């Protein structure tokens, strides 16, 4: 389904999310690559298949397949790193931080797109997956590469809204189904 068609299926209570998304996808603070890469990576991280499909399809009208592929890569690798490094900041045992991770993550260098963009998508995904260490470290890298707090927040807003939409799209079909037992 196309993204605007999917958004049209949203119930009335989710209107804020629908309007927020439409504004955020056109925000001037970010480039098209930053916007759509964030949207794709966050849709993957938020896990609703219909949203992933619709966002990726719409993204292909605005950015290259390489960007979409790299954004999916960011969601993939952060899906892993967000758990591993979240463990590290959750545990009170500091020793873990000194032990080698032994996890391949070559895509963080081999994605083939702008490094600042890739790191920005990582920040957004880390916000969804709730890894504090990842949010801090990738946010720092992104600012060192010249992006402003405004730009970063622009990306995090997309993450927030996409996540909210995924939750609605997960629950709504079940609620609407007449086969629900009483």
């Amino acid at each position, binding site marked *: 389904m196309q993204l605007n068609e999917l958004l049209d299926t949203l119930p009335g209570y989710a209107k804020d999310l629908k309007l927020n998304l439409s504004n955020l996808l056109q925000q001037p603070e970010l480039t098209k690559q930053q916007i759509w890469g964030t949207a794709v990576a966050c849709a993957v991280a938020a896990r609703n298949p219909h949203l992933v499909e619709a966002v990726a399809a719409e993204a292909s009208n605005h950015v290259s397949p390489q960007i979409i592929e790299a954004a999916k890569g960011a969601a993939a690798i952060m899906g892993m*790193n967000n758990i591993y490094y979240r463990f590290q900041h959750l545990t009170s045992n500091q020793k873990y931080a000194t032990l080698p991770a032994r996890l391949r993550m070559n895509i963080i260098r081999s994605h083939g797109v702008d*490094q*600042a963009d890739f790191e920005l998508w990582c920040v957004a995904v880390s916000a969804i997956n709730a890894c504090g260490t990842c949010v801090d470290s990738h946010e720092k890298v992104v600012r060192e590469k010249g992006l402003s707090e405004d730009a970063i927040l622009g990306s995090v807003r997309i993450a927030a809204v996409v996540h909210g939409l995924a939750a609605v799209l997960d629950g709504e079909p079940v609620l609407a189904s007449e086969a629900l037992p009483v």
Partner: protein
Amino acid sequence: MLGVGEKFPSYSVQATVSTDQKKAFKTITDMDYAGMWKVYFFWPKDFTFVCPTEIAAFGKMNRDFQDRDAQILGASTDSEFVHLAWRTHHEDLKNLPFPMLADVKRDLSEQLGILDHKEGVAQRATFIVDPDNVIRFAYVTDLSVGRNPQEVLRVLDALQTDELCPCNWQKGEATLVGA
């Protein structure tokens, strides 16, 4: 023997790449497989006891190595015809998915420092070489002891696993300069 950090030697040899008489031989040099990692493993002699098990074991794991952008290259000082006869003759080697280099002049083995001077053949040596042709792992066992391809894969994995995530960087350390 050449070790870690040294450049893998230049070479040009004939190699046996299949049991099909028409397409069996190919010239292979150090410039082939550009951009890939290479896993060279040498054995002393074709048609002997320990070797086929190891070679077949590497063969079964070829896909794992290819997934890690690594090309396996077997080698001995036997000629390409001996390799062909051995592959044709031995059930486990018929469909070997990687080339067998024929270091007949013993030039490559000599440059690597793995030519056993008593026996005149290559020692049982394994080298992992990176895309810049630098040796990153060198392992050799005495003539009669086989080696463990799982271990070679483990090392390749470890060599390719860099902690590229800023989450690993301590306060005060220099930042990684992006590509």
